């Protein structure tokens, strides 16, 4: 099918806090094609993470329709959502979220446990993924023996290990200095070159500049989309 990888229409997310409700997303429509490289930007509290969590199937919208890879996410059961997270999505977090007691290799291999892949094969795939991010020599290290940049590479390797159709990264450079940030972004660039669809959240213009497309979120709405802008300007021209 030639439909977009991601189709969001009329997405609303409300959080209930006691008696009051807070609308974090107020009607988001968005399409992302395969092999796009998208930056979600916007002020703090605008709803970027909320949107990412929905894209990553960690959460479900209050109303609206989300189609990923032609599957209507809204109709899925809890364990089906887990399977989507496991197979379709690689998620990279700002604070790495590695499992501290496990080795680097074990961390990267963990998603494959939930696919029922035996140990040897898991470790083979995990080692390959770690080599891809340049950490082939750190397999037996613990996360706390690594620098921030290295930890984030491990997280990227873990996100990639299952060949997901979508790589999501919520402020992946937020905890890194600018030099290390550039290294991580170079990695994302390379992955995009290899055909990976990448969506990331950032505040920083020079990070967003790595991406082909910028989507700006403000107050729970998309207020700017460089792809739509292009379309608009094309029409205008």
């Amino acid at each position: 099918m030639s439909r977009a990888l991601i189709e969001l229409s009329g997405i609303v997310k409300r959080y209930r806090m006691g008696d009051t409700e807070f609308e974090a997303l107020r009607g988001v429509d968005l399409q992302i094609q395969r092999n796009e490289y998208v930056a979600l930007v916007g002020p703090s509290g605008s709803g970027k993470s909320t949107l990412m969590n929905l894209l990553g199937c960690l959460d479900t919208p209050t109303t609206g329709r989300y189609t990923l890879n032609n599957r209507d996410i809204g109709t899925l059961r809890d364990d089906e959502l887990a399977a989507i997270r496991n197979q379709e999505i690689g998620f990279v977090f700002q604070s790495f979220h590695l499992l501290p007691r496990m080795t680097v290799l074990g961390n990267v291999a963990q998603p494959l446990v939930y696919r029922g892949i035996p140990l040897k094969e898991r470790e083979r795939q995990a080692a390959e993924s770690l080599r891809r991010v340049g950490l082939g020599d750190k397999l037996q290290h613990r996360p706390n023996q690594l620098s921030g940049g290295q930890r984030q590479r491990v997280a990227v390797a873990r996100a990639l290990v299952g060949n997901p159709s979508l790589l999501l990264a919520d402020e992946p450079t937020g905890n890194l200095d600018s030099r290390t940030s550039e290294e991580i972004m170079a990695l994302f660039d390379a992955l995009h070159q290899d055909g990976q669809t990448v969506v990331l959240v950032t505040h920083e213009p020079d990070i967003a500049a790595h991406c082909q497309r910028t989507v700006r979120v403000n107050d729970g709405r998309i207020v700017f989309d460089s792809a739509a802008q292009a379309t608009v300007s094309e029409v205008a021209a």
Partner: protein
Amino acid sequence: MIIVMIESLRAAMANILANRLRSFLTTLGILIGTAAVVAVVALMQGFAQSISAQFADLGGGSLKVEALNTRENRLSGDYRYLKDSDLDLLRYRVEGVGHVAPIMAAPLGTASHRAETATPFVLGITAEYQMIERRFTRLGRFLVPADNDTRRRVVVIGDKVREDLKLPDNPVGSYIQLGREWFKVVGVMESRGEVFGFNQDNYALIPFETARALTGNKAKVDFEINFTISQLDEVEAVKARVTRALRINHNLKFDEEDDFEIQSPDQIAKTFEKITSMGTLVLGGIVGISLLVGGIGIMTVMLVSVTERTREIGILKALGATRRDILVQFLIEAGLLSLIGGLIGIAIGYGLGHGVAALIPNFPPASVPLWASLGAAAFCAVVGVVFGIMPASKAANLDPIEALRYE
């Protein structure tokens, strides 16, 4: 699923080893519970063995009649006795009865010889005793009917009495005192050794009539009648006949209860069974309570551990773990924890049981059957899993985003 289970087991093992002290304390309740249970089972097993050994020693098919005294008639002083005529009745008038022997306790006092003293059980018996109890003399002779008829002051002693009184190796012909009365030793019984910590040779046998004459109250003597049955398969029929005969002899009206009781070895065995099943019940209670306490200990620590590991659970969910995967992981951890506690407890309990058994002289070496140990271990694992359900489902139902955000 298998992969998830193997991985959970590995993770649980790593977790338990990473927090050794905490894991130990968590499972301490289970550990102590199983240790206590295994130790007690080991000792009970020892009891049972030694008691059945005693039964085997009791001389198979003999039955016992004794007067039945309820608490009321004991208190009112209306103490019941068997009649002398009951003896002859059983001897000559009831079909199917073999040997008949009266037995009475003869509390004459301490036995002494020169400066040495002993405290044997002194029984007044007749020659038939030998046939019923199947105990025979090692030296000299047993009591004969003439000893009884003429109330001779003769005694057959157990080996312990000979030792205690420092009598010569062959004491036949020596004189000893029972209380103030002099008796001539005519025989020494075969040694029966010790059963269950009690010396079985600390007794002295004197003629029944001698005993009766020396214990004062000649009219009413508290004695029992032991008898054998000529055809073993007729036990019930003979018991019924004896009952009928005794009721007539005791002038009981048809609506009056028996004033005597016939005990057969299987009745004694039944009584014993009742005692052991009571013991088992009590034991079951202890097991239940201790494992409940142990299980609650595991549940508490697992709940804390789930809270501590909230972020980890969030990460696993983000990576694609289903509720069931998380549930399985925590159940396996709880089960493994209590299994380990149980196994250590079994080892300790085993050692304890052996130690205690070794401290009691002549207690048979305690042994817990393997199946019991394995059963206990499996039971511990089940307890862990059951008490792990609450924490595990708490973990499984965590919302991934909130779990990830947890500090």
